[in-house]
């Protein structure tokens, strides 16, 4: 069982305060697959990744990665597990006091005893994969938004992790980089025998790329299936999401009092 599913999330409930953000989530990520988590803004995708990475402890339920219960590990065991995980943060989170190259080399320096010449080659290879070898010596403040995300991506795959979590890898990318990054995610996954979780709003790209889709809504998994099942699904809220329709069962607005009353309250 533990060999077939790299990640198992069982009945996980989580809230930052009283308000529950994740409500009884169940989800598995099979070994070697690329799984997408989609859903509206604010539905708890980033939170879910944090829970899987052990950065947040669930109020209830269990998260297993590679057969180990993440929320019951000691600090040192958690760190040992994290060495084999990579996470691309939604806002990049590059170290602003280091160049692109230093950012990518960071984990190699921290966790390995490789000689400097090999670290240099490895880091340049990662940067080459995202098309930014030429930007190796630029500081994060000198990068454009899309470039910064690609450097962050190169950094997150630096140690060839067994589990990759990408939080919105496609935002801010032009169509060409978007396609390249999509292929890169797939290729890395397949050539390294890794497993990937991709959080994204980019439905078209995701349906091309992934093996399986979880669609979240208000802290719950509302739909799951293969890309073909998603395209064919009759679920109206999912249809609305996939085809980007303004009208449908999913409200665009965060819950608020009546608009008219709010405006003319005086």
């Amino acid at each position, binding site marked *: 069982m533990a060999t077939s599913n790299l990640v198992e999330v069982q009945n996980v409930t989580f809230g930052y305060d009283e308000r529950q953000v994740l409500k009884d989530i169940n989800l598995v990520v099979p070994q070697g697959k690329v799984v997408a988590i989609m859903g509206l803004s604010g539905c708890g995708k980033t939170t879910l990744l944090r829970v899987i*990475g052990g*950065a947040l402890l669930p109020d209830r339920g269990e998260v297993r990665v590679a057969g180990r219960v993440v929320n019951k590990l000691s600090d040192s065991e958690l*760190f*040992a597990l*994290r*060495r084999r*995980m990579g*996470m691309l*943060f939604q*806002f990049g*989170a*590059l*170290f*602003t*006091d280091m160049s692109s190259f230093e950012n990518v080399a*960071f*984990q190699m320096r*921290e*966790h390995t005893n490789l000689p400097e010449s090999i670290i240099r080659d490895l880091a340049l290879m990662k940067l080459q994969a995202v098309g930014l070898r030429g930007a190796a010596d630029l500081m994060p403040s000198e990068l454009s938004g899309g470039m910064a995300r690609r450097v962050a991506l190169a950094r997150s795959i630096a140690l060839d992790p067994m589990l990759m979590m990408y939080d919105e890898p496609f935002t801010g990318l032009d169509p060409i980089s978007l396609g390249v990054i999509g292929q890169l995610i797939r290729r890395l996954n397949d050539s390294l025998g890794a497993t990937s979780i991709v959080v994204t709003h980019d439905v078209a790209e995701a349906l091309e790329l992934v093996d399986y889709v979880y669609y979240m809504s208000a802290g719950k998994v509302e739909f799951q299936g293969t890309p073909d099942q998603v395209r064919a699904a009759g679920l109206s809220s999912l249809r609305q999401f996939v085809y980007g329709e303004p009208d449908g069962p999913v409200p665009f607005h965060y819950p608020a009092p009546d608009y008219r009353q709010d405006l003319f309250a005086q």
Partner: protein
Amino acid sequence: MTGRLAELVRALGARIVDNWIWRLGFACRFLWFTLKESGPSFRRFHLTIREIYFTGVLSLIIILVSGLFVGMVLGLQGYDTLVRYGSSEALGVLVSLSLVRELGPVVAGLLFASRAGSAITAEIGLMKATEQLSAMEMMAVDPIARVVAPRFWAGVISMPLLAALFSAMGVFGGYLVGVRLIGVDEGSFWSQMQAAVDFREDVLNGVIKSLVFGIAVTWIAVYEGYDAPPTAEGVSGATTRTVVTSSLVLTALMFRGR
């Protein structure tokens, strides 16, 4: 009336407990973790060297210039007073003792808090606000070991050196004004100083004092940064608190040290 008074006392107590005792407890735990995770700061000393450059070397200008001027003022005012009692040759003693024992560590500490302490707080606070610290944790690197401890040790190492330079510069400033400008006898200026300043009683005492100040200021700075709310206001508030708290703590420690 008594009800209102009780209310007031209770509110005051709650504020003190929440703002001071509670935070002091966290700060102590934080210091303990920092000390426990200090291995890499020394094993990979280049991490600490880099921070010594930012906290120590970049503070040099302000420390040297202030030291010179404080010494010059001491020379001028000291001469003014001493000459009334006909003992202007003791100027060297006055200048050097006030600097080495008191002013050096304290003024250098205050300057250090506002120059380097605030920078440390702002940097760590911003790293937290931009998720760099969380990212580091996700990469299985402890931010306390990698970010906090090297900055802490850099501050602790820099501060006594800066205070010593401040005092040296001050003595030189006193010499410039007293001997060069006013014309106190050069020989007695230096020989009296040499005779009166005791290495253990005065110099070593000053060094220990500045070491304690360095620990206090850097501890406050790294803690405030690490504890800052991850927003722009949060970081700016923490930076202000670093300077205010360190100044108050330095003043308190100064009288404690008498």
